[in-house]
């Protein structure tokens, strides 16, 4: 029941070919310490489920540059030029899903829901090949739940049991990916004693969290910088 581990233990938890669920919206709320730990490992052929591929040269983008990502599943990659180029060359697979559908599919994966019907994207190119059904007179498309082998979560605080709270919009996809991975690792700014988090305010109960690491990054304006 030792949940707090060292960052260098992380790469042992991820295998080549794994599906990795990663929280964050762009870099905001992105688990950078966890992501960068994989740079030094020999894992490869990862499928990464995350709204974006970090930003050019930062976050998940570094994993991509290091040739560790086979496929991305997310909602927005247009502004990431190297990813677009790699996709055009057939070097990167991309599965594009509307942002709300992505969020709902990850939640469903964590909640034991096999799939669901959404109004979003009905009649569009992103609905092609997907089952359509009329429910109460409205058109919906079917989406399957998403689960992962390992989830990378960024939270503001964890207690030693693994309960998590988040900070402002850095919450984003983090509580969702925390529910849907076989192994869930949370990177946090601060680790506190059990009892120091308000039970009404805990967003991710410790039942979801397998490991906790101390983040190596601190905020500096609109950047996260490595702490010394």
């Amino acid at each position, binding site marked *: 029941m030792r949940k707090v581990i060292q960052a260098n233990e992380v790469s042992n938890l991820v295998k080549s070919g794994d599906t990795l669920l990663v929280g964050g*919206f*762009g870099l*905001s709320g992105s688990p950078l310490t966890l992501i960068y730990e994989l740079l030094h490992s020999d894992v490869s052929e990862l499928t990464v489920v995350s709204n974006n591929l970090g930003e050019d040269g930062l976050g998940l983008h570094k994993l991509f540059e290091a040739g560790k990502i086979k496929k991305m599943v997310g909602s*927005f990659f247009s502004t990431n030029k190297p*990813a677009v180029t790699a996709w055009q060359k057939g070097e990167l697979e991309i599965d594009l899903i509307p*942002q709300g559908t992505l969020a709902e599919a990850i939640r469903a994966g964590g909640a034991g829901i096999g799939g669901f019907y959404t*109004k979003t994207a*009905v009649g569009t190119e992103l609905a092609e090949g997907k089952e359509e059904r009329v429910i109460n007179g409205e058109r919906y498309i079917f989406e399957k739940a998403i689960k992962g082998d390992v989830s990378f979560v960024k939270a503001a605080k964890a207690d030693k049991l693994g309960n998590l709270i988040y900070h*402002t919009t850095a919450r*984003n996809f983090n509580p969702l990916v925390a529910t849907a991975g076989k192994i869930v690792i949370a990177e946090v700014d601060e680790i506190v004693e059990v009892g120091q988090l308000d039970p009404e305010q805990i967003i991710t109960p410790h039942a979801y969290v397998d490991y906790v690491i101390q983040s190596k990054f601190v905020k500096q304006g609109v950047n996260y910088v490595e702490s010394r």
Partner: protein
Amino acid sequence: MLSQDKRHLIAKRVAEELEEGQIVNLGIGIPTLVPQYLGEKEVYLQSENGLLGIGPAPTEEELDIDLMNAGKEPVTAIKGSSFFSSADSFALIRGGHIDVAILGTLQVDVKGEIANWAVPNQPILGVGGAMDLVAGAKKVIIAATLFNNKGESKLVSNLTYKTSGIRRVELFVSDYAVFKFTDDGVRVVEIIEDITIEELSEKVGISLEYAEEKILN
């Protein structure tokens, strides 16, 4: 008119459409100019990444990478704001709890169906929350110039760009006119530019009619 003036003209006109207390989601571009024209009218701005109650732009000291809007720009949060996950945020959007989404677009057809996500002749690798907002918001207002930078009308008989969904928008506020979409098709609600409806029709390439507002509302 300068391009920047047109954008503000559109934003100001859109602001008139909003009502006190509404929950509003703003797309990128012209929609982000709307709040400065609201005057005393209080609306609550929602952001897809998990915030209801976006405040004014942050000062240098307030800048915080954790606190962003859906365009990944730093923001602040007002009194009475709340934070939630992306799943809860899109539950709000898709579930019909956003009163008005103000969006940009590439094209609108005469029935009000829009194409606002896939830039033509570019790889389609981004959709973000565009389709969720189109499908879910109670009312969608398009805020965009009437002509793109090639001089082509964004109001078209049939979309030639990829649709954002089957849901038809309610209003298109442009720099030339305000268009309303009903089951009977598009009607001009108001002409902004100094132009006749015949001249407008010719420029757009579609025969346009005025709305009889009293009947329509």
